[in-house]
């Protein structure tokens, strides 16, 4: 056998790359500061007095970019990349270059008044960025911080796997604990264990230093004992589970989910419940859109229309302020009246799915996306129009939507717990429907349709019928979302049903994993739960105005790095990555068989 091709020697650094990533780091930090992110997020503390979310938004940059600057892929048949001081030097250099650029930014911002162009770059920002000690000291500090953090990024390559995992897990754990502060405080309050939460969290918000140390240490300890990345391991195991085992697992997961869904709202406070209700509402829509986009492969950009239809139908049927000729029913789930409302909502949604679906069904790909986009806007504009104002109230919308009723309980937005329970029930139904459909003949037909419409037709798949079915099922799930939304808010306005809702639901599906039910759940939790919806705050409420920026950045990152989503469907994963792996496994098996035959 000939010698393995070697890489560059250990001291040889790819300086081009280090320089490039260093510059990116500096520009990113300057960008994040100039849009005002550091300043606005500074109010939220992560670790009490030392680290705020604003600074965290800056500090991750040199670490990540230092890591990227020295990252080398392990290649089969090549000697493993040597780790060592090279990585440290590279990381340090990238960090220093980044720091230099950032310091230059601070100096320029200090010297020149840029407020005309960048309203956020003012003395307050400079003061914050220089720690109140003037540009010279602040600049020096930043050079040091950025260099050290870059080196830390490089160091991550050098550390033994276990140590690295312990470090990253400890950091992640502290961040997560700070993230879910309001929920944890609620829970400990209901359990009357405020002693503990008072000790972990500081009065101004954020984890206390002692709390951070304990949480980090616990996370590090637990990760040292485990083999490999727990999440990845779990997902792989789940993907390879066979029929019965998986069924059992799903059952247990469902039961745990149910218990959580029943108990959590009782121990959580209003804000957290509101947040969970929003997660559920978007999850409901995402499950529906997942049928259309993920299963049937029909890119629908006007999905919000069905959400709007559900909300307006509910409003018209129940509100006393809707036109006189409409009934005034109560959405009482234990009486016939409530069921009438639901049946009408379903019927109207199905009909609108049919109306939108029929003309667009023959279009493919981009054309379908463009036309559905148009339809979504048309629906909103119809609700907004003066022409239909007698029915829909124009820009004023329809107000005074009464609470829904379930036996003795009133369900409305002032009691977010009740909304959450309602959402959970409908999400449960939606998950069940999606799951059953996926494993049915219809699911198979959708998959075939997504892959090759002509051949699917030749195999006897009723393509038109199947596409309409996807549209209609998706529309019905969205309309339930709309119904709950109407009850929750108590009023409906056209401005609640803008294009951005369609886009955010689509981003949930894409980021979570197209065609994957667990993926959509994870996507809603991460995006709506942490970042928040178009108008709904998430755990990081401070992100407010930067939400869409983060959504966009996340989408780009996911498309480049993990197009199959956070929790991909088994099929999608195969589509995007497994190709090479399978081909490889197959070639290897072939070679092994050949050499066995030779002997």
């Amino acid at each position: 056998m000939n010698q393995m091709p070697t890489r560059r020697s250990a001291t040889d650094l790819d300086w081009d790359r280090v320089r490039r990533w260093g510059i990116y780091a500096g520009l990113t930090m300057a960008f994040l500061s100039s849009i005002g992110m550091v300043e606005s997020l500074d109010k939220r503390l992560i670790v009490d007095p030392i680290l705020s979310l604003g600074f965290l938004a800056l500090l991750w940059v040199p670490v990540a970019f230092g890591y990227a600057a020295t990252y080398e892929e392990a290649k089969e048949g090549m000697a493993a990349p040597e780790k060592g001081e090279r990585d440290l030097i590279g990381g340090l250099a990238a960090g220093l270059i980044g720091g230099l650029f950032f310091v230059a930014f601070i100096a320029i911002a200090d010297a020149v008044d840029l407020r005309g162009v960048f309203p956020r770059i003012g003395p307050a920002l400079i003061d914050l960025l220089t720690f109140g000690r003037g540009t010279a000291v602040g600049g020096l500090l930043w050079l040091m911080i950025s260099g050290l953090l870059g080196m830390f990024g490089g160091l991550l390559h050098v550390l033994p796997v276990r140590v690295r995992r312990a470090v990253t897990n400890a950091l992640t754990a502290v961040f997560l604990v700070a993230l879910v502060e309001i929920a944890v405080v609620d829970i400990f309050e209901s359990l009357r264990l405020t002693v503990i939460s008072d000790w972990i969290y500081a009065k101004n918000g954020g984890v206390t230093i002692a709390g951070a140390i304990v949480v980090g240490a616990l996370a590090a300890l637990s990760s040292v004992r485990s083999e490999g990345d727990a999440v990845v391991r779990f997902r792989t195991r789940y993907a390879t589970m066979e029929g019965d085992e998986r069924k059992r697992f799903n059952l247990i997961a469902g039961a745990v989910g149910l218990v959580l869904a029943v108990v959590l709202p009782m121990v959580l406070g209003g804000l957290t419940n509101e947040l969970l209700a929003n997660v559920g509402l978007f999850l409901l829509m995402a499950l529906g859109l997942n049928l259309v986009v993920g299963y049937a492969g029909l890119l629908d950009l006007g999905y919000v229309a069905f959400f709007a239809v559900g909300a307006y139908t509910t409003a018209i049927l129940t509100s006393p302020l809707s036109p006189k000729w409409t009934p005034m029913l109560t959405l009482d789930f234990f009486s016939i009246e409530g069921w009438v409302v639901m049946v009408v909502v379903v019927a109207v949604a199905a009909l609108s799915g049919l109306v939108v679906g029929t003309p667009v069904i023959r279009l493919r790909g981009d054309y379908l996306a463009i036309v559905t986009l148009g339809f979504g806007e048309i629906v909103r504009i119809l609700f907004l129009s003066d022409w239909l104002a007698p029915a829909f109230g124009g820009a004023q919308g329809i107000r005074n939507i009464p609470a829904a009723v379930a036996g003795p309980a009133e369900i409305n937005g002032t009691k977010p717990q009740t909304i959450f329970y309602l959402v959970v029930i409908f999400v449960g139904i939606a998950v069940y429907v999606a799951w059953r459909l996926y494993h049915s003949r219809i699911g198979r037909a959708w998959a075939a349709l997504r892959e090759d419409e002509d051949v699917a037709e030749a195999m006897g798949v009723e393509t038109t019928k199947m596409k309409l079915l996807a549209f209609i099922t998706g529309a019905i799930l969205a309309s339930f979302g709309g119904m709950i939304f109407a009850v929750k808010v108590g009023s409906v306005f056209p401005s609640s049903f803008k294009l951005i809702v369609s886009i955010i639901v689509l981003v949930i599906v894409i980021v979570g994993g197209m065609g994957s039910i667990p993926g959509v759940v994870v996507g809603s939790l991460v995006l709506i739960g942490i970042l928040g919806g178009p108008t709904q705050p998430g755990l990081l409420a401070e992100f407010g105005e930067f939400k869409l920026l983060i959504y966009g950045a996340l989408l780009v990152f996911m498309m480049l790095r993990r197009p199959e989503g956070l929790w991909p469907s088994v099929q999608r994963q195969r589509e995007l990555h497994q190709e090479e792996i399978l081909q490889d496994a197959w070639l290897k098996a072939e070679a092994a068989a050949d050499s066995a035959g030779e002997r």
Partner: protein
Amino acid sequence: MSDRVPVLEFRNVHTHYGPVHILKDVSMQIFPGELVCLLGGNASGKTTTLKTILGMVVPSSGDVLVDGEVMTGRPTADVVMRGISMVPENRRLFKRMTVKENLEIGAYLRDDDDVEEDMEKVFDMFPRVKERLGQKAGTLSGGEQQMVAVGRALMSRPKLLLMDEPSMGLAPILVQQNFDIIEQINDAGMTVFMVEQNANMALSIADRGYVLQTGQIVLEDTAENLLANEDLRRAYLGQAD
């Protein structure tokens, strides 16, 4: 022969794509158990003929009959239900689905319980397919893809198998293998209607053949006669052999 009911019959079929006239007054009959081939050059309308049979293209006049019953204008699913299935041009597997999922789509319209059994039959015919069951169809070799495509078509339990240029894009040795398999399937009692440009090979296993030229049937005869036909030799078989 004439008192038997043809599995498939074209009665003066005309087909248009928009205003463009593709099939011009095509009439043909395929009887149970036959292996019939349709020869013709590029763009002569061969694939269009198969699409017309399946109802994916509706004739602008004339009728398509299956087992003596008029199927013109009926949806493709109905035609497939009547026992007609196709191996499309270039095989066109669902590339990102596994081999197994491909076979399952083949049985899409069936609701009986013998699907597993029929899958075993496909494995008996193509043991390689069984080995590749979990593999993504797009990563199969050309020969394997052909096997899966045939297997997928057989999964609907057809009585008439349509094949669109089965030799296209295959190495000569695979072409031979492929024709052997078609012959074998036909010997087992399946009626086969095969579209080919490789006239020599196709006629060597076929019972009868039609020759299509710019949408018109210009010749129709037994395979032996067609092989001996001077005009056809000149037009399609080349000078050699």
